[in-house]
């Protein structure tokens, strides 16, 4: 454990290396990256021991009221820390190529400092077992995240995104203050956390609501996701990967951890999460389809995936409420595994998106095209990530979604009538999956397929090796979980047991809820082998075929790259289908008359909640407050004296009875 702590400290201070190393040769950056790698390595031994029967704990005194420096590594924490370490390490390597010090002298050091800081803060957060320690780490993470997002703070849109993020995260933190203060009532001493399934409070509902707001804000559950698209789009890609792949999961971690304390879980908790999960999932992906900025699109997919994770957690909570142990195990395992999976494939996608941005110089999907020829490896990695995020076999996304499906099917066996409502999870998940597929077909096909739409895309170049290797490793990790999921089963099983406060997990072998993972693995291998064989055979057949012809234009002889489908046109039919909830703005597009003049079409989908609800509401409130201000603080001293007199009178009337 002490090594773990050393690793955390090394990561935390790694960025300071940027201050000393030589700028021209990126020396500081390399040193910082090395420090992070060493830090990650130091963390690993403790993680390997997580399945050992004795827990690893650090318990030190801490001289603040209610404070106690209590860290503990259990299976739940480990499930979050494992992907975190991978993302942090690979992101740091990627940064060497993507955000070189000498190319970004103004902000590379800042980025490096906060990159290390946020990594360390997140690990501490995931290990903390004391409210104060947790909140400290939480806010350090949130603030470091803010500085990552505003790396390029000379751009106004980046500042705006950062501001929205900061507001959102701080409001969430305040709610957490409330939740943890309530959690600590009745505890005179340190605010250390109760053991799993041992806590009960008359204000449990309020705690849950506050925590749902605070953690949901961070995780990006649907009405609270407002900060997410802008922030992920604004940050440098490897920072986005860290934010989207790992940071937002701390919200999920918070919910998982907090709900584990309670001995009794009211059914409405699970239902609320289920509902939020469905809304986030469906609308997240629908909004993603409507985007044409690749990083915004990926950010909305984070909302979608958080929705899926919330579905898993919701089912697990329902399992607790209705006493369905298999439901708990499957739901929580799905939730935790999807957390890890999303961390992997979303990071992969953000990194490869970064490589595309690096190569082409824009985030607009509509300006890409034909990139697979110019960036073959990036394309391959992106394709892998896309298949994984759509939840398709043989990659890891399928495994976790499968667990959640299975959980929702398990409900069929339950005697409770109300519970069967949660069956709707399965079709909702199917719809989400279908839409995600549409979306990623769009992104992959439009960006990598076809002909380049712009000169910039035509002259795109492949990323350097420091960027390609991390992506490759992510893809391997995705495939690993997809093909050998049973390797993770013990960890998940134990996490589920710890979550319920049980000492002994359900059996893993035959009959246990996680047993079929081995069979899936078999199917996955068959699929991979068959695909490889047939592809190899076809490839051999097709050698020597003519490759110098144009695409068949259905009789039209002069096709141009501009005639290809674009991201907007691809998304249009689906966006129209969801227009009841998206309210896209559409301009032009209909040719008029017999000889139509040049016309253009563009569609733009503002965020449902940020641009349509929160922004106007805040504007209105600000206007109202402005009015109140003019009225109260009007500059006339006589009126101010009147306030004094009135205060005096009111207080006298109230107090001297």
């Amino acid at each position: 454990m002490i090594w773990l702590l050393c690793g955390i400290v090394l990561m935390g201070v790694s960025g300071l290396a940027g201050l000393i190393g030589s700028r021209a040769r990126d020396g500081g950056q390399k040193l910082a990256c090395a420090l992070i790698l060493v830090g990650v390595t130091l963390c690993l031994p403790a993680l390997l021991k997580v399945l050992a029967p004795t827990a690893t704990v650090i318990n030190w005194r801490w001289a603040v009221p209610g404070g106690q420096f209590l860290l503990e590594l259990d299976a739940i924490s480990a499930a979050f820390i494992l992907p975190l370490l991978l993302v942090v390490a690979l992101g740091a390597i990627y940064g060497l190529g993507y955000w070189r010090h000498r190319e970004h002298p103004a902000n590379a050091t800042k980025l490096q400092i906060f990159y290390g800081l946020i990594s360390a803060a997140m690990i501490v957060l995931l290990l903390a077992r004391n409210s104060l320690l947790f909140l400290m780490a939480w806010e350090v993470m949130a603030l470091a995240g803010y500085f990552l997002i505003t790396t390029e703070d000379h751009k106004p849109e980046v500042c705006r995104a950062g501001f929205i993020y900061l507001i959102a995260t701080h409001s969430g933190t305040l709610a957490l203050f409330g939740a943890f203060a309530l959690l600590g009532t009745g505890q005179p001493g340190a605010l250390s956390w109760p053991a799993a399934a041992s806590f009960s409070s008359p204000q449990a509902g309020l705690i849950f609501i506050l925590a749902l707001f605070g953690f949901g804000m961070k995780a990006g559950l649907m009405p609270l996701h407002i900060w997410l698209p802008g922030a992920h789009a604004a940050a440098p890609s490897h920072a986005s990967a860290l934010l989207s792949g790992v940071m937002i999961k701390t919200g999920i971690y918070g919910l998982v951890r907090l709900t584990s304390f309670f001995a009794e879980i009211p059914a409405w908790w699970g239902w609320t999460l289920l509902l939020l999960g469905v809304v986030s999932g469906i609308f997240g992906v629908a909004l993603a389809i409507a985007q044409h900025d690749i990083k915004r699109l990926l950010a909305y997919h984070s909302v979608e995936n958080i929705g899926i994770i919330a579905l898993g957690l919701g089912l697990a909570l329902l399992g607790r409420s209705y006493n369905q142990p298999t439901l708990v195990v499957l739901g929580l395992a799905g939730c935790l595994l999807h957390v890890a999976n999303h961390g992997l494939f979303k990071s992969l996608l953000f990194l490869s998106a970064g490589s595309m941005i690096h190569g082409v110089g824009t985030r607009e999907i509509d300006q890409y095209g034909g990139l697979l020829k110019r960036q073959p490896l990036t394309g391959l990695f992106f394709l892998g990530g896309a298949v994984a995020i759509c939840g398709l076999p043989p990659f890891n996304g399928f495994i976790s979604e499968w667990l959640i499906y299975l959980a929702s099917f398990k409900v069929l066996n339950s005697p409770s009538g109300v519970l069967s409502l949660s069956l709707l999870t399965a079709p909702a998940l199917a719809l989400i999956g279908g839409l995600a597929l549409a979306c990623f077909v769009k992104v992959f096909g439009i960006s990598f397929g076809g002909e380049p739409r712009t000169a910039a895309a035509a002259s795109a170049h492949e990323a350097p090796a420091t960027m390609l290797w991390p992506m490759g490793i992510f893809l391997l990790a995705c495939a690993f979980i997809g093909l050998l999921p049973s390797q993770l089963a013990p960890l998940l099983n134990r996490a589920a047991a710890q979550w319920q406060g049980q000492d002994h997990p359900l059996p893993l072998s035959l009959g246990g809820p996680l047993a079929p993972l081995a069979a899936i693995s078999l199917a996955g291998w068959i699929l991979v082998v068959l695909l490889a064989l047939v592809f190899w055979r076809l490839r051999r057949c097709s050698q020597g075929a003519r490759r110098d012809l144009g695409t068949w234009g259905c009789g039209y002889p002069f096709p141009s790259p501009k005639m290809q489908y674009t991201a907007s046109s691809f998304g249009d039919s689906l966006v129209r289908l969801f227009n009841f909830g998206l309210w896209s703005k559409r301009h032009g597009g209909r040719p008029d008359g017999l000889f139509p003049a040049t016309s253009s079409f563009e569609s733009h989908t503002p965020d449902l909640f940020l641009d349509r609800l929160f922004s106007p509401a805040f504007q209105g409130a600000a206007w109202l407050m402005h009015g109140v201000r003019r009225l109260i603080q009007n500059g006339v001293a006589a009126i101010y004296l009147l306030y004094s007199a009135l205060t005096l009178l009111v207080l006298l009337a109230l107090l001297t009875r």
Partner: protein
Amino acid sequence: MIGRIVLQLLILLMFAPLPLGVINKTKALFAGRIGPPLLQPYYDLARLWRKGFVFSRTTTWVFLAGPVVGLVVPVLACLLLPFGGLPAPISFHGDLILFVYLFGLSRFFTAAAALDTGSSFEGMGAVREVTFSCLAEPIVLFCLLVLAHGADSLTLGGLLGPQLTSFWHSPHAASLGIVLVCLFVVLLVENSRIPFDDPNTHLELTMIHEVMVLDHSGPALGMILYGAAMKLVVLGALVVRLALPLQTGWLIGDLLVFLVGILLLAVVIGVVESTMARLRLPRVPQVLVGTSLLSVFALVLALR
């Protein structure tokens, strides 16, 4: 065990193109023509396999991956299904989800291959394909939920097991009937049949699936056709098993029932194709949403 698996695969591989021939024959008969011979799909495939490739200079390896996945997926999916008296070779808790998602994989690659050509027509086809299947997937899930409820099992083998007979006789038979209808609709959508898509139309603008594979040639096109045929059989197997849950207890008998069922299904499809007009494209989502509602209704009936 191995023998049964090989037998099942052989049935799939050998038998797959036949239903297409039956459909075409049926349609021809309805139209008062003699029509192509029943084995015409086999001839087509054989001829395509002998031909050479032509590639657009725009395409990449993804273009080839489409047909590959389209071929492999039905084969693997077939391994998850019981065929007649043959039990499913791979069976585990929750294999039904793998079944559904495998077809998602094939759709992903087919559409990606279509976009790889850079043709606006193929892009159009890809959009339609992914849009409609989005709506079809929840239907399948609802149907599977109904079946799983009836079977008290989460494997495809269990779902389609002997209890189906009693299910038909139980008060929940109505829901099973609705499920059958819904799955049939999904079958038509997934296999691009009228009234959702017309595989034989000549106007690219109205196509869905066919327009996606315009640029394929030679063996690759053959693989696509073959894969589509197998997909029809695999999905058809599901419908047939539901409609004809006869259990003779004798392997050959069960297999015969199964094969006859598939051919009957082909005839029914042929009849539907002959008697119905193709839907206007904007109508398709409406029909699919309607079908989803129907499947929800089935679930409600089943849980009642």
